[in-house]
């Protein structure tokens, strides 16, 4: 026992210089991200149609009567009866804060999803949508809004009479399922005595192109401007109108995906050594690759279900984090869990309040537009700065 601790101390002493530095970079990244989230969140709760002063808004956020009220949390997280609270608290806690939480969950999901896909395909340019998820989801969104809009599904329930489902209420689920199905199609196309990263990406591009064409074609059959706008909001990603219901929808999947990504980070590290090395180390590469892709697709689908197809976050967040902490996936995944929400919350501030600040119009734009506007130039900057791009 004594020799063991002695050994460890010797080793950790050797490591202090190097690991101390990296831990510091990871910690500072996380702290900075939390700072951005808190700041963005406070901006989000302070401004909006119902005007209140900063102090009032912050008091409402830190209203101990809500924070320590189990009934309130029960209402938020499990959808129970909302207890009474004053109007400001209601607006902050029931309208503005949940949107921030949804942004955090979406950012988290997209970031880890992108990180996983970048390791699975061994390609830095991979995003959560590289294996056809976005095109499958986008197509199903269009099909639902344009083709199935008039229909409704009546589910007879024995005791409660009947339960009517309309396609639009099922849209989040349909979109996610469409994404997952597209992913499975891509995998099936790529499979030939096993897969390879290149074949997977190619199959993803092919399926994406076909689905994209179908999706664009369907726009011609949309006769209502409202339908088109709604479709665009879904396919570019928007957090408008999200509340606790979306948190409830995404939270279980997020918890699962985050847990799986953390557990799988060592497998991801070994995958990065290349297929042959991973194989010779005794990894069942095909199984691990499919399982991890599945986790990444679930995470992407969860974010699609609540926010539509938000581009760029899943691509650039792993990049940003890798730039700071290096390519070790144990650190990378943790970094993504913090940086993803930071980017998403900050972008949503722009999406929700940007128009009113810039042109004074009281309009919101889809958050996906902001992430693209912020993400594109940042990606360009990275590309110019880095010597080798595209390699992990």
């Amino acid at each position, binding site marked *: 026992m004594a020799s063991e601790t002695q050994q*460890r101390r010797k080793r950790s002493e*050797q490591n202090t210089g190097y690991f101390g530095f990296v831990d510091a970079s990871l910690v500072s990244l996380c702290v900075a991200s939390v700072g951005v989230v808190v700041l963005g969140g406070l901006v989000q709760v302070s401004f909006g149609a119902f005007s209140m002063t900063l102090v009032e808004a912050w008091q409402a956020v830190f209203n101990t009567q809500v924070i320590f009220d189990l009934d309130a949390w029960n209402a938020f997280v499990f959808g129970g009866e909302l207890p009474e609270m004053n109007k400001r608290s209601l607006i902050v806690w029931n309208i503005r804060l949940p949107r921030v939480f949804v942004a955090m969950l979406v950012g988290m999901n997209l970031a880890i999803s992108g990180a996983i896909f970048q390791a699975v395909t061994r390609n830095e340019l991979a995003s959560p949508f590289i294996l056809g998820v976005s095109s499958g989801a986008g197509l199903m969104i269009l099909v639902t809004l344009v083709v199935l809009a008039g229909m409704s599904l009546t589910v007879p329930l024995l005791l409660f009479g009947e339960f009517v489902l309309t396609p639009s209420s099922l849209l989040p689920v349909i979109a996610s399922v469409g994404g997952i199905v597209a992913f499975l199609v891509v995998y099936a196309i790529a499979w030939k005595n096993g897969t390879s990263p290149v074949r997977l990406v190619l199959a993803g591009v092919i399926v994406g192109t076909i689905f994209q064409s179908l999706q664009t074609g369907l726009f011609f059959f949309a006769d209502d401007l409202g339908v088109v706008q709604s479709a665009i909001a879904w396919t570019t990603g928007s957090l408008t109108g999200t509340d606790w219901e979306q948190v409830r929808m995404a939270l279980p999947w997020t918890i699962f995906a985050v847990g799986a990504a953390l557990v799988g980070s060592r497998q991801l*590290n*070994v995958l990065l050594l290349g297929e*042959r090395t991973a194989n010779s*180390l*005794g*990894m069942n590469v095909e199984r691990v690759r499919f399982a991890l892709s599945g986790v990444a697709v679930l995470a992407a689908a969860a974010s699609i279900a609540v926010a539509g197809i938000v581009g760029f976050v899943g691509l650039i967040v792993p990049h940003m984090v890798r730039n700071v902490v290096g390519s070790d996936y144990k650190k990378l995944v943790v970094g993504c869990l913090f940086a993803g929400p930071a980017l998403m919350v900050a972008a949503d501030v722009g999406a929700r309040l940007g128009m009113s600040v810039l042109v004074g119009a009281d309009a919101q734009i889809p958050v996906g537009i902001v992430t693209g506007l912020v993400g594109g130039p940042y990606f360009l900057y990275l590309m110019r700065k880095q010597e080798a791009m595209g390699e*992990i």
Partner: protein
Amino acid sequence: MSRDRTDGDDGGERMDGGHGAAARPSPPEERQESEDGIAAVSGRESPADASELVGEDLELGYPTNEEPVVECEHVVLPAGEVTALVGPNGSGKSTLLKSMADQLDPWAGGVVLDGERVRSFDAKDLARKLGLLSQHNQAPESITVEDLAYHGRYPHRGFFESVTETDHEAVDRAIDLAGVEHLRHSEMSNLSGGQRQLAWIAMVLAQETDILLLDEPTNHLDLHHQLRVMEVLDSLNEDHGVTIGIVLHDVGQAARFADNLIAMADGELYDWGPPREVLTEELLADVFHVDATVDHESPTGPHISPHAALDDG
């Protein structure tokens, strides 16, 4: 570092029974004999954990081939010895090595590790017994030598298990043995090709297998690092009784270093045995298409003086 045949002498009686018999693709009764010989040896000389790897009736090929690339009736990596695979480009050395490491499913035949088919092993169980270092390995840029070595512990760890003291010790030993202690915290992207190769070797050493297969580990390395790699493998074999199978481009290096040579030509075993017996001028002409003289009296093993490339015929 070269293994001269002094230790081969005390295994002399085995050499006659074992290698002599297996020098050519051997009929079944002789094969039996050779296995007995090796079993007797591993009881006497080699450490108990030395393992042998045998390929039987192998037909190897890739999905795009119509004909098998390698056909080989019987190939042995004797327990506790170093066996070098030599042959010209495209003779099937790497393919054979891959299938011996269970990375390539044979069309026919099978590979047997200590009496058990490698196919029947669970992937991680096999990776604890048999390590493979492929050619052209690429690591993520910011990974350190130590990180890489820890990956060698992958087959020893369960899905949820964290690093144990055994892992730490194995990594320390591997880094020490590979002689990369001073590079321990360096990132791979900052190392030279030779240093990188030693780091990869540290990784497969941390795997702590009984058998280690390497595919041209000295390719593209300067002479210093070539010798370093060979010294590491040599001490691994001498001190730890690890059975080594190695594809080498340089026949002279193979002859100095290995206990046995397997010479391959056109996907078949041309000859098999101790370097002094296998490495002849005739072999160099037939297999490598070179005109060369071989000095069998050289103290460091057969020495080759190449003169001219022969017509491919």
